[in-house]
């Protein structure tokens, strides 16, 4: 269990984490989501007492992290896989961590086996791939067999095999009743891994709910159409109380010049077109993916947003 109340962190005039309150429950994988720069890593550093909060508190298993008697036995954390001395072997790295908490060397060999690094245990970590470094980091988190695990962007830079391995590992850790917090800026990844979501943007809490609720809470599903008479259709839709806009059509199902209609069902759109004698070349309902829901919710909280080039962001009613 991790509990934050009013957690705030300011760096000068920048607010990295803004009045965050949440509690992370055991037994499920909690995805910690937000665009780059949203404050995920800062929040994790606050949880681990690496940074002092400007306001608010965070407790781990009922205590401030710094007061845990044997932190590795209670919390395992992977913040930055590359954060180890390149001249040190994986085994020496893990051993020096284990020794701080009185964990025996035999456990070091055991976790090296769990993450599949026994063969390279004595190699200097300088030459490790990012995937191997992630495994060392995860081995470090598992050393104390803790009930709470935190992983910051654990699948970054991993190949599909590695991603699948981490996903399975996190799910099995949660299934054993542990608290698992995983941060990511990749929505598609969370869709496959997490049961619960905490979404932040610009340091503020945007959502704290189950994945299905998160998708449902996003804007209504849209009807996608393609027609040679877009201005006539959008006028008809407007008079029926719906809104039309140029479809983003990321999946490329409908093709160019598609229109996205909100506020009306697929059947209503069909009836409307029929009544106005408008020819439709495509009619479907788009499924809102977690990724789209995330983009909608965090749209105003993205720090660095690229301009959309060469494509109108709103349907303007003229012939395309």
């Amino acid at each position, binding site marked *: 269990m991790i509990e934050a109340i009013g957690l705030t962190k300011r760096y000068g005039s920048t607010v990295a984490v803004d009045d965050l309150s949440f509690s992370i429950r055991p037994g499920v994988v909690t995805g910690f989501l937000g665009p780059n720069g949203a404050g995920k890593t800062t929040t994790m*550093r606050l949880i*681990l*007492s*690496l*940074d*002092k909060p400007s306001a608010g508190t965070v407790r781990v298993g009922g205590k401030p*992290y*710094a007061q*845990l*008697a*044997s*932190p*590795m*036995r209670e919390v395992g*954390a992977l*913040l*930055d896989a*590359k*954060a*180890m*001395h*390149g*001249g*040190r*072997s994986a085994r*020496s*790295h893990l*051993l*020096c*961590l284990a*020794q*701080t*908490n*009185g*964990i*025996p060397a*035999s*456990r070091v*060999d*055991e976790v090296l*086996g*769990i993450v599949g690094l026994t063969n390279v245990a004595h190699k200097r970590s300088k030459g490790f791939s990012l995937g191997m470094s992630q495994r060392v980091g995860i081995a*470090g988190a*598992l050393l*104390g*067999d803790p009930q709470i695990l935190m992983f910051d962007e654990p699948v970054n830079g991993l190949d599909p095999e590695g991603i699948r391995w981490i996903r*399975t*590992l996190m799910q*099995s*850790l949660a299934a*054993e009743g542990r608290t698992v917090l995983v941060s990511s800026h990749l929505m598609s990844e969370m869709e496959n891994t997490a049961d619960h979501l905490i979404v932040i943007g610009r340091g503020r809490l945007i959502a704290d709910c189950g994945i299905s609720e998160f998708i449902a809470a996003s804007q209504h599903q849209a009807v996608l159409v393609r027609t040679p008479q877009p201005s006539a259709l959008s006028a008809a839709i407007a008079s029926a109380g719906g809104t039309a806009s140029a479809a983003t059509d990321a999946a490329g199902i409908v093709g160019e010049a598609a229109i996205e209609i909100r506020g009306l069902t697929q059947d209503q759109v069909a009836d409307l077109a029929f009544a106005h004698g408008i020819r439709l070349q495509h009619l479907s309902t788009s499924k809102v993916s977690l990724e789209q829901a995330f983009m909608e919710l965090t749209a105003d909280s993205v720090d660095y947003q690229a301009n959309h080039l060469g494509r109108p962001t709103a349907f303007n009613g003229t012939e395309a």
Partner: protein
Amino acid sequence: MAAVTTGGALRGVRPVPPRRAVLIGAIRSELTKIRSVRSTYASLGVMVLASIIWAAIFCAGTAAHWAHMSAQVRGGVDPTQNSVQGLALVGQLVMVVLGALTITAEYSTGMMRTSLTVLPRRGVVYGGKALVLAAVALAATFPASFLCFFVGQGFLASTHAGATLSQPGVLRAVTATALLVTLTGLFALGLGAVLRNTAGAIAAAYGTLFLIPELARALPTPWLNDAQRWLPGGYLVAQITTTNPGGFIPHMFFPWGELAVYAGYTAALLVAGAIVLRRRDA
């Protein structure tokens, strides 16, 4: 994934270590850290080797010129200083790097965050580092200092000008040289903890120990005397490696006194480092 659940090797291990065990754990961890990187062996190896070569060259040179020296010049030769001064200088150069790296390498690699996550009591982490660095430095500098002394005296044997440990001030000079080099490691550790940057800490240490004493020469005499007495580095080496009464710089404290001044600076820097480590975000 069954293996994850067991935590097998942890069974039967005491779950919560008593307070004293936390410091012992930190010391063992730091010992593993310092022993598991090549830079430790490389820098200490260079220190021992270079200082022995220095002792050999210096003492051999003195022996070669001995026949041509006047009685007065011979009286001014300090055979102990001839043999250990190299260690005092090379040792300081090397130990600044080793001492700074002990903590700044953790900042540059990001290891510090991991270290403070597994052991959030920062004072204990830092204390463990200082103790282990001091122990490793002592373990290297004491044998090195005696080796330098004996190698140097070996080269002087033909002139019968060599010193023995039982002569006045000799054991003190050999011991103080090892302590001076050890203190320099801790001095740099403190600077490293304050600055959190390898290049910055090394530059600051060299500047303080070698550059400022040279710049102080520009001061008017009474101020220069005060500066020499109270500044770390520089003249300190000459003062503590001397056994010859004529070699002492009269306005400076006697060797242990100068070493105590240096220890004071070192302690102040270590405390400053501890305060920064505890207060600032990691």
